[in-house]
């Protein structure tokens, strides 16, 4: 390049950003979702006279706070290209372990410790199969989904653990101030922690890199397996937190606790704009999705619509929110041609 026309020092200028941040925000999935959430809120306020009531809205949050806690960790896991379908079963096992601890005289602090520890251990078990043995996470967690709940069934059979101390009920039934529940506080704290972790830290950047191209991430010096293992641990831990809240809220443990919750968690994450194939998604998106799902279920519940019919709405929302922009783009492209 010695006799290239341009001197090498005068390199061309590459701007930092293509679009302004306002433009990016406006076009984002979160904006679309927020619009959906606001419209649902409006529709609900018109449809039922009971909707705009602080206590009712507070009660309604129970429909999603526990699921959302797991959804935040699950969002990171899915962005990294993995998935954990065993979360509901981890709740069952963690709750059973707490029940067992109760039999041996554990107090509230010990119960919480047990729940969180079992959650972590289950996460480690999944993480081991996926990162050390290199197995596909969807299959591993379909297996552990049966295994974890199966162990609860072996321990409990047709029995139930009950008689949790009254101080323990604080987690799932307590109020911090006025209508603000303990679970809401946990939800906010966890949302902030995961939002910061994903969007503001090196770890979060590694999660995105792994989700977009795990091989290139490895070749860039990222400890891919370690990051994934940590993500499984976090998902297990959050399931443990949810187990504490749910057990506290129900005041008892049965092996069938939280059955089917994994699909609702995944639905929440996907509705929140996380690409199920990995690589993209945000925590604010998941937060809004949690509210959308909570508002839909609560609004329809006020009209005494059966849960299964609500799930039609959730299903349509899930497909529709992804399909409509694509349909629109297709129609626009056709009109142009």
């Amino acid at each position, binding site marked *: 390049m010695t006799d*290239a026309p341009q001197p090498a020092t005068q390199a061309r200028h*590459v*701007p930092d950003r293509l679009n302004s941040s306002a433009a990016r925000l406006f076009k984002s999935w979160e904006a679309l979702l927020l619009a959906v959430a606001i419209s649902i809120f409006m529709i609900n306020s018109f449809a039922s006279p009971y909707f705009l009531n602080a206590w009712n809205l507070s009660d309604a949050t129970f429909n999603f706070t526990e699921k959302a806690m797991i959804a935040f960790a699950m969002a990171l896991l899915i962005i990294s290209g993995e998935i954990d379908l065993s979360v509901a079963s981890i709740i069952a096992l963690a709750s059973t372990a707490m029940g067992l601890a109760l039999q041996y005289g554990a107090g509230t602090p010990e119960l919480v410790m047990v729940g969180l520890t079992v959650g972590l251990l289950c996460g480690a078990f999944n993480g081991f199969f996926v990162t050390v043995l290199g197995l596909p996470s969807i299959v591993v967690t379909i297996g552990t989904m049966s295994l974890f709940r199966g162990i609860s069934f072996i321990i409990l059979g047709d029995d139930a653990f009950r008689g949790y101390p009254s101080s323990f009920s604080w987690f799932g039934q307590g109020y911090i101030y006025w209508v603000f529940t303990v679970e809401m506080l946990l939800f906010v704290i966890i949302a902030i922690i995961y939002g910061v972790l994903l969007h503001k830290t090196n770890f*979060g950047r590694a999660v995105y890199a792994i989700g977009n191209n795990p091989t290139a*991430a490895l070749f860039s010096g990222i400890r891919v397996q370690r990051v994934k293992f940590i993500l499984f641990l976090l998902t297990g831990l959050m399931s443990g937190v949810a187990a504490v809240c749910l057990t506290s809220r129900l005041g008892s443990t049965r092996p069938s606790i939280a059955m089917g919750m994994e699909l609702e968690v995944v639905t929440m994450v996907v509705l929140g704009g996380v690409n199920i194939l990995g690589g993209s998604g945000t925590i604010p998106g998941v937060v809004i999705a949690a509210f959308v799902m909570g508002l839909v279920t609560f609004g329809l519940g006020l009209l005494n619509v059966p849960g299964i019919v609500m799930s039609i709405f959730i299903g349509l929302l899930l497909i529709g929110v992804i399909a409509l922009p694509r349909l629109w783009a297709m129609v626009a492209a056709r009109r142009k041609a």
Partner: protein
Amino acid sequence: MTHPAPHAPDVTPIVSMDMITKTFPGVKALDDVKLDLYPGQVTALVGENGAGKSTTVKILTGIYKTDGGTIRIDGQPVSFAAPNDAAKAGITAIHQETVLFDELSVAENIYIGHAPKTRFGLIDTSEMHRAASALLAEIGAPFNSHTQLRELGIANKHLVAIARALSVDARVVIMDEPTAALSHKEIEELYDLVDTLKSQGKAILFISHKFDEIFRIADRYTVFRDGAFVGDGRIADIAEDDLVTMMVGRSVDQIFPARAHDVGEEVLKVVGYEHPTEFSEINFSLNRGEILGFYGLVGAGRSEFMQALFGITKPSKGVCRINGDITVIRSPADAVSNGIVYVPEDRGKQGAVIGLPIFQNITLPSLGRTSRRGFLQMAEEFKLAREYSQRLDLRAAALDQDVGNLSGGNQQKVVIAKWLATQPQVIILDEPTKGIDIGSKAAVHEFMAELAAQGLSVIMVSSEIPEVIGMSDRVIVMREGRIAAELNGADLSPEILVRHAAGITSSSEGNAA
């Protein structure tokens, strides 16, 4: 054995593309280009990376639809709705990427989509294997039609791709960089095959960045630059330098940069690296400011070894000393923190994190420096990214653009920028100029020399003899997973390199002579 091709200028083309346009979001890949393919002649399509060569191939084979322009076959306008239409029109291609199926047998790979059928409409497996065996025999493939594709090496896979192209009775055969993955011997066989096809009156479109082979086998040329048609004509009527000038838009100095071969103290020493199946007895040392070339035939195990050095695979034995200290490298993260970085051969899969913006790709391994206590600092990141993208003359719309939207050469620059930003001691470049056009190639060479001059130690894995000889201070030749020779100075001649790489010892050469 070749008949002189009918060079009569009035011979009509089989395929004639005219005013072809193709736009991708944000890129005008082809802009009113034209291309004619004549029976019994080889037309070379040349152009820089991203000039639109492969896009043209994909249009001719029905994979992409054009936005405008006409394609004529024997003078009749045609339009291809799907790849099958192109195949029915007699156009077949060996694509730049291997597009085959690991889990299917060789015969199925050859015939998938057009397998012979029985009376009941089911696939006639015995007929399929018979026909496939015949084809394989014709191209001299050393495996049979029942073999699973998975079991074949990269060169043999390419033979399957060639057999597949021949399995349709085509009049037009397209070869997009067919020799990039082949060894010397197989390349010669491919040239013979091209001659045979020519003599059968087929029109051949040949894409290559290697000028020696273009001048050896092509009859005509067509040049594209930045998606536009620049010119065409007969190879016999043009000199190499003029073709290069047409292609790049300026003249290119193909001389390797002059370098002062003064090297510093030892930086890296590898002792007795071994792997159960891939390599063994690797010993060498690397000095500051040195460019160490690794030459070998494709599949000699150079990349395997480099990846072990980088911590991707685990060697079973051996130690590595960095600045004299024994250092254990268990993962790429270890390698990076010890100042060893690796620019992989497979850019798309192992190099760039497609989906992440350019600046995040560049800062990915340096986050430790741009962040504060694990928290990201966007401004620092942009600063670092700006610095290195300028140093490498990166061509992009913005630093927050997805790296996947860049052309191959610019992706390569991002990968190199990412590593330079870590301020390494040793940089390993695996086939740094593979698939890179002649203009960018010179820039890469220039840049390597600059790095070495700044005191960086460079390991360059390359299969191109001129590059190895032109750039290296010292060359290690690998064969079948072992070091076959270490050469420098006067020993660096193409003949000696090839002899060691192919395992021809001097004595056997003496016998042969």
